[in-house]
Structures are given as structure tokens and as C-alpha cells.
């Protein structure tokens, strides 16, 4: 499949967006039953969008920087009139009366949203096994998970169904599946992409970002969806960075910190990839230093209190009163409870319980309050590191894609999978995962580059150096 950059260039030059869409739909048809990537394909809407793009170009206009590019959307992004489920029974059949800001921006840029992809229910998980509509399979090895929670969006790009997709990253939910599916995945600076219309998991951590096969495609997508949105109070009131312009600026003169805590405990193949990435950056003119940030290891604990606490409140609204599932009962409280009990899966219930407990009278200080202080310490620790280096380097995940069911019985084992990605969500800063090398069974390994808030131009340029070294 062509890259998004190439499709947009060709469509703006007169190539047919409808034909591009048809290639995408054909590819979806050929593998969706096997992989369970899309929960809903909006053929009608996609054709309408593609035709409009073709009409604009035929009339001599420019259809935008993503003209005719088929895009897959994680099913926690609201789409006007198109089913949006969060992979939960509780929202089965719900059609939002509005579009997420990123969806409006994609459409305005000429992109063609083709459908909604599978995820761990309410984005809670690291394998896409927690979907009420069945797991998604990793296109590179269908016996393994694609990662999660944005597993469907990762699989859509990995299976060549669309060149681009959007996911959301609360504790690694873009970077981890990107690593497991051999893709570029970005967790942008908190506030740089509007959350309006992203169904909240943990509001202070959630951030929307792209999946792509190339760094350039990811940069193009982020340029389109990023930037200030008055509908999101946490949106940074500044213009979105231009990433493509500086994509090939390299890393000469940059200081990169190889972080012990972001590699420790990884499989050997993963460690080797990170070391090799350090060497590549050094060869490209960067200074690489090894450093330690001990606070990062506490991120997991803080995250698994903060995220469930916010989630327990964010998911209270699914009560059977206004939309979605209702299980009838004698009185309204019983109806709320019957609806939530039937509508939520086990992992969602587990996190709601954990978060409710962490916030409840008598336990707030020991758990949630403590976690917020750890968060302060983590931000300070990152700041100290960034006083000395421009970027940090580590692994995205401790291992390559794992087999189905291998971690589902032990939530703590599953949670440990996010240990390298979580700190960036707590700090609100930026990170990117780039496929670099392979590991067990020839499966891709993801290397992670981290930077301070608003460091995307530097991160993308460094990621591009790694990509070039891999011959892409």
C-alpha cells in the first residue's frame, strides 16, 4: 500500500480517491474476518468523503494535506451518526450526534475515514483481548496479540488496510501496539491534540495520536490533527508544530540519554535493538550518555491508581438512563446497577473498583493522594534529565508480541507490560515508538524516543534517523 504522503500528493494531482478507497476496502474485506480489526466499516460515509475529494480536485481545488487518504479510527473516537462502542456492550448501538475534533480535522484535510477499529474495552488493556467484540489478531502472526489498547488501529495499518490510523495513548496504548505490529506510533505532548470527542478513560493522561508505517506519514497526520481547540480546556493555546519541514534535520549535536530503567528487564533481543539504536544515533552525530532515573519504576504504581481513579468517575455516566444499554429493574438504582453489571467486562469492572477504592473516604491519602505526589516527583525527575539531554532512549515494550491468553489471568503481569510507556503519560510529555530490529520469531521490536513537552520536531527527526538506518 502506498504511503499517506504519496496518496495525498497523487490525489491532489488528479489520482482517484475513490479508487484508493476501493483498494483499502478490498484489503479490509480480505482479512477482517480473520483479524477482527474493524468493528464497523462505514462504506457509505467513506465513499461520500472520497467522492467529495475527487470533486474538489476535479474542480481545480486542493483537497488538503490528507487528500484521499483512507484512515482507520479507534472506536473510542466519536463519529457523527456512525456507531461508536469503545468495544463495550454498554455502548453497543450508540451513534454519537457529533464528531470528535480530530475527526472533523481529518475530514477537513481530505482524509477518508473508513471505519472504527477494535480496542480493549474503554481502552483498558494492553492486548485488545478485553474487547466485548472479540480480540484482534496481530497481522504479523495471528496467534499473537497486536498489543493494546489501540490494537485494531495498529492492525489496520500493519495489515495494509489503511496507511494511517488514529489511536489513543493513556499508558502506552499507541506506542505498545505500534511496537508489537512494527509501526511508528506517537504519544503527542498532552494538550497538543484535542481530546474533544475522545471517550475518556483517564482524562489527565489520555492523548490521541497516529499510527503509520513511516515517520513522515505519522508527522503528516499529527500536523493535521494537532493544534489548539477551544472545546478542550486542556488544549495548549499554540500553533501545532510543523514536523515535516524539519523531518530530515538529523540528530547531529543532540544529547541523548539511554535510560537504564527503560530497558531493564527486557528480552535480550529488545535490549540489543536499543543498544544498536544508540549506536546509530551516535554515528549520526549525537552524544549518547547512559543515565538512570530511578523514579520511573514507580510510575506503574502511580499510574494504576491515577488512571483507575479517573476512570471510575469517567465511566459513571454509563448508567442506562440516557443512551446505550439499559437492563430494566424495579427502581432506578437497581437499573443502574443491572445495566453496569451486564454492560461492562471484567477488566473495566476491575479498574472501576480499584479507582473507586483509591478515592474513597479513608483511603484517598494513602493511594490516590500518594500517587499524585509520585507524579510530581516523576515530572521533576524527567526535568532533571532534560536539563542535561535533549532526548531519552529506551525500549517501548519488554518483549515482542506475545501469545493470546498468556497474561490474561494475572492483571499485574499484564500491567507490567506498560512499565516503559507509562512515565511519559504521567509527565504529559512526548514520545514516539519506532520499529527497530527484530526479536523472537522475527517479530518487530519497538524502540522508544522520549522528549519534553513540545519536543515533537526533535523526536520525529531522531526517529527518522533510526528509520533511515533500517533502510526505509
Amino acid at each position, binding site marked *: 500500500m502506498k504511503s499517506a504522503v504519496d496518496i495525498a500528493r497523487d490525489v491532489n494531482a488528479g489520482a482517484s480517491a475513490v479508487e484508493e478507497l476501493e483498494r483499502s476496502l478490498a484489503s479490509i474485506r480480505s482479512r477482517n474476518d480473520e483479524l477482527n480489526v474493524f468493528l464497523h466499516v462505514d462504506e457509505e460515509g467513506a465513499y461520500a468523503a472520497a467522492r467529495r475529494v475527487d470533486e474538489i480536485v476535479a474542480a481545480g481545488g486542493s483537497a488538503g494535506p490528507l487528500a484521499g487518504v483512507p484512515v482507520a479510527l479507534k472506536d473510542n473516537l466519536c463519529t457523527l451518526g456512525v456507531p461508536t462502542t469503545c468495544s463495550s456492550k454498554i455502548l453497543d448501538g450508540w451513534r454519537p450526534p457529533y464528531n470528535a475534533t480530530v475527526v472533523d480535522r481529518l475530514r477537513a484535510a481530505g482524509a477518508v475515514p473508513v471505519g472504527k477499529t477494535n480496542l480493549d474495552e474503554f481502552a483498558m488493556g494492553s492486548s485488545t483481548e478485553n474487547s466485548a467484540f472479540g480480540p484482534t489478531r496481530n497481522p504479523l502472526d495471528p496467534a499473537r496479540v497486536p498489543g493494546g489498547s489501540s490494537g485494531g488501529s495498529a492492525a489496520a495499518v500493519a495489515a495494509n488496510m489503511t496507511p494511517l490510523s488514529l489511536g489513543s495513548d493513556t499508558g502506552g496504548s499507541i506506542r505498545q501496539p505500534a511496537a508489537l505490529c512494527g509501526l511508528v506510533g506517537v504519544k503527542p505532548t498532552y494538550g497538543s491534540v484535542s481530546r474533544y470527542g475522545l471517550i475518556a478513560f483517564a482524562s489527565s493522561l489520555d492523548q490521541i495520536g497516529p499510527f503509520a508505517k513511516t515517520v513522515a506519514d505519522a508527522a503528516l497526520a499529527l500536523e493535521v490533527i494537532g493544534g489548539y481547540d477551544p472545546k*478542550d480546556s486542556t488544549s495548549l493555546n499554540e500553533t501545532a508544530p510543523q514536523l515535516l519541514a524539519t523531518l530530515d534535520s538529523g540528530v547531529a549535536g543532540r544529547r541523548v540519554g539511554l535510560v537504564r530503567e527503560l530497558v531493564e528487564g527486557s528480552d535480550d533481543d529488545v535490549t540489543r535493538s536499543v543498544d544498536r539504536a544508540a549506536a546509530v544515533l551516535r554515528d549520526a552525530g549525537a552524544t549518547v550518555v547512559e543515565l538512570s532515573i530511578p523514579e520511573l519504576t514507580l510510575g506503574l504504581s502511580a499510574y494504576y491508581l491515577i488512571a483507575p481513579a479517573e476512570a471510575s468517575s469517567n465511566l459513571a455516566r454509563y448508567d442506562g438512563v440516557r443512551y446505550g444499554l439499559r437492563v430494566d429493574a424495579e427502581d432506578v438504582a437497581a437499573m443502574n446497577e443491572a445495566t453496569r453489571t451486564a454492560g461492562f467486562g471484567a477488566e473495566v469492572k476491575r479498574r472501576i473498583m480499584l479507582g473507586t477504592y483509591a478515592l474513597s473516604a479513608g483511603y484517598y491519602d494513602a493511594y490516590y493522594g500518594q500517587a499524585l505526589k509520585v507524579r510530581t516527583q516523576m515530572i521533576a525527575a524527567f526535568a532533571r534529565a532534560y536539563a542535561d539531554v535533549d532526548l531519552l532512549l529506551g525500549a517501548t515494550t519488554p518483549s515482542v508480541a506475545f501469545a493470546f491468553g498468556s497474561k490474561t489471568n494475572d492483571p499485574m503481569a499484564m500491567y507490567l507490560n506498560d512499565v516503559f510507556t507509562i512515565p511519559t503519560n504521567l509527565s504529559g510529555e512526548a514520545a514516539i515508538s519506532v520499529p527497530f530490529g527484530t526479536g523472537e520469531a522475527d517479530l518487530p521490536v519497538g524502540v522508544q524516543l522520549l522528549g519534553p513537552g513540545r519536543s515533537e520536531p526533535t523526536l520525529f527527526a531522531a526517529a527518522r534517523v533510526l528509520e533511515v538506518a533500517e533502510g526505509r
Partner: protein
Amino acid sequence: MAPLPNGWEMVVGLEVHTELKTATKLFCGCANAFGAAPNTQVCPVCLGLPGSLPVLNEHAVDLAMAIGMALHCTIAPSTFHRKNYFYPDMPKDYQISQYDLPINSGGYLDLPDGSRVSIERAHMEEDTGKTTHLGGSGRIHGADRSLVDYNRSGVPLVEIVSGPDIRTPEQARAYASELRGILIATGASDGRMEEGSMRIDANVSVRRPDAPFGTRCEIKNLNSLRSLQRAIEYEALRQIELIEDGGTVRQETRHWDEVAGETSTMRTKEEAEDYRYFLEPDLVELAPDAAWQQRIREQLGPMPAARRAALSALLSHPQPAQLDAIEVVVDLELDEYVHAAAAAQADVAIALARAANEVAGNLESRSNLTTDAFSATVLMEQRGELSATQAKTVLGDVLASGGDPAAAAAARGFEQMSSDSLSSTVAGLIDANPDEWQRYRDGDDKLAQFFIGLVMKATKGQANGKSVIAELQARR
């Protein structure tokens, strides 16, 4: 009320929720208007749809600060929290409310009787939707089904929490009434209790004087000043009786039943919700800077106490009836009429009476009556060109359809009665009634009414009573 038995003292603090008079809701652009068809003023935000996010209404902050300033509060950097509990009128199943850092804190309110009630805080929060109960009595108990309208969901509220400084039902009423006047004067609220735009909860406990505070009960559903007063009295007496019978007061929330005239248990302390407050991650800090605060301070007009003082200062010895009229004029914001009349050298007592009666009785059409027209009418009455009855009629006409009072008087055929013609009429009637005139001259003042009656009959009511008396006295 009569003093509490056996030297008991009541301790009352009030929580007043007031809706703010903004164009839109607190966190979305839906109209904040009363009375629209159900669920027509709702959007993803105020319906709590998945993915929606709140954005704070700047003008709601203006009004919240104005309330704080009028109550002498400190305005400080503040935050919003989520108060978590399930209830069908609350779309997100949490209320966004200010918690440990409210925008206004530490103020006071002085009452007309000279007492001072401290204000602990005045914080911002969002209103809930409205439920209607079907089946049974239409109340929540015994209903078999309820309907929810979310038009009110997200309407901005300010909750004003007083200190436990109130000691009598009358003081509670005076506090609520004075606060209502202040809310109206700031432009923050229309103060309409009957539409629910001002709602009161009362925390009531009893103690022996100077003893520590007793256990308090929170009384809900006080929809009028009258029910506030009645409920507090009932509740204090209930607690005293309970204690004197050897019982103890349980901390609980109680419901005031207006019809039965009693409070009953709604929820005990054990059944109280665990609200799991935490900082609202979808909103940021609210810390109005000095310039923003200054802008609001400059727009703030005088409060009712100052306005009452300014009006009474126009009278040399205000009489009780005039003080009552001032109360009405301040309450209904009719001050400008009286001040304009005073500036036009009109009689302030007449102006007050006309404002507190005729204008107050036709509030909806007050825009038809300019302050000039009002002053002119008072002057005409004062000069005897209109009788009191005629002046009232003329004001009524101008309020109904605007225009000039002289023209309105002419249209009614209220011809000017010159002092010459009044003088000759009086002279003629004295001649025709010598006995009565003599008795009047001998000091029988009641006969003034006899002559006024004759003059009115002769002039078909066009004479001014006071001018007739002046004429009679001049000849006495």
C-alpha cells in the same frame, strides 16, 4: 417567634444556591433560559455524552466574583472538583463543583437589624436536570416512574454558605431576604424562589447558651422565606423536645413538608454518600487576575443597605410607612424613580408612595415610564394640578402605554384646576355653609373633610385635597 423553652438557643447556618443570570450554561453554549420545551436546550456537554468536555463560561465567573465582592469575600485562585454520586438528574453522575479552593471565601453580610452573619464561602457549581414523578401523588414517594428534562443541567450556580451565626427564624428570614436583594443588585440572579432560581437548605442545631454546638440536621426543600422560617422553628423545637425527653439528635438530612408543616428523615449520616471528591481533570485552575477583579468591582453598583440609606436620607424624619415603601423600592430596583423625582425638587414622600404602589404594581411595563415622566407626574400632584387619585390614574396610563403625563391627564379630561378657580369655589362654599364654617374656625378639624367633599363634588373630583385644606386654613 416566642423565645425557645427553658433557655435553649438555636444555631443555624444557611446554604443558599442561586442560579446565575448568564446567557449560556456553566460549561457549554446551550441557552440558560427557564421554561423551554423539555430537552431542547441540551448538547453533548450538558447531556454528559461520552467524549464531551466542559469549558468554563467567563461571565459566570464575573457574576460569581460580583457576589463574592458584595459579600466582602476574599477572591482567591480556585479549582473545580468532581463530586461523585449516582442520580438520574445528573448526566455525568458527578457534579462539577468547587471544593477545597472556592473562588470566594471569608466574607460577611450585615442585616438591617445591625447583626452580622459570616459567609464561609460562595463557590461555583453546576445545576442538575429536573425530574417529574408519574403515578402516586406526583411526589417522589409512591411514584412508579420518573421523567427527566436536562434543560437545567449545567446551569451555573453559586452556593453561598453562611457561618453558624443565625439564632432566630426571623434572623434567618432577614438573612435570606437581604441576600436575595444583594443577588438581584449584583445582577447575578433574578432571585425568583418560586422558579427555583434561589434555593435554601438550613443546618439547624440547638444548645444551651455558651455551650458547644449540638449535633446538626440539614433541612432540605425550603422553597420560600415562609417555609424557611417555619421549618427552622419546627426543627429547633423538635430537637429540644427530643433532648429533653432523654434522646439525642442524630446527624441527618431532613425533608421539610410544607403541607404537614414538619420535617422528616431523608437520610442518616450512615447512609450519606461517599462523594470521592477529586480534582476535575478536564478543567484548569481559575485564578482571576487583578485586572479582571477590578473590572468586576467597577461594575458593581450599590447594595441594598446603601440604597436604603440613600433613600431615607432624602427624608428628614422617615415614618414607618415610608421605610416600608423604601423596602419595596429597593427590592424592586425602583430607586432611580425616587432619586430622579428628588432631583426635580418633587416631594420625596409622594414619589416613594407612587413608586412603591403604582410602579411596583406594574413592573412588567416599567420601561414605558421614564424617570422624567414619573417626576413630572409627582410634581403635578404636588402642585395640585392633579389630585392623588388622578395622579395614580395618570401613572397607570403612562405605564400601560408610555407617553407624556400631561397628555395623559388631558386625555382623561383632568383639566388643570387653577388656584384662582379653587379659591373662588372654596369661597362660594364657605358662604353657602356658614354654620359649618364657624365650627371649623372654632377648631373642629373634622369639618375639613366636609368641605373637601363639597369641593370634590363641585369640581367633579378634579381638585387636590391638600390644596383645599391649604385654602381652608388660609381663611380660618
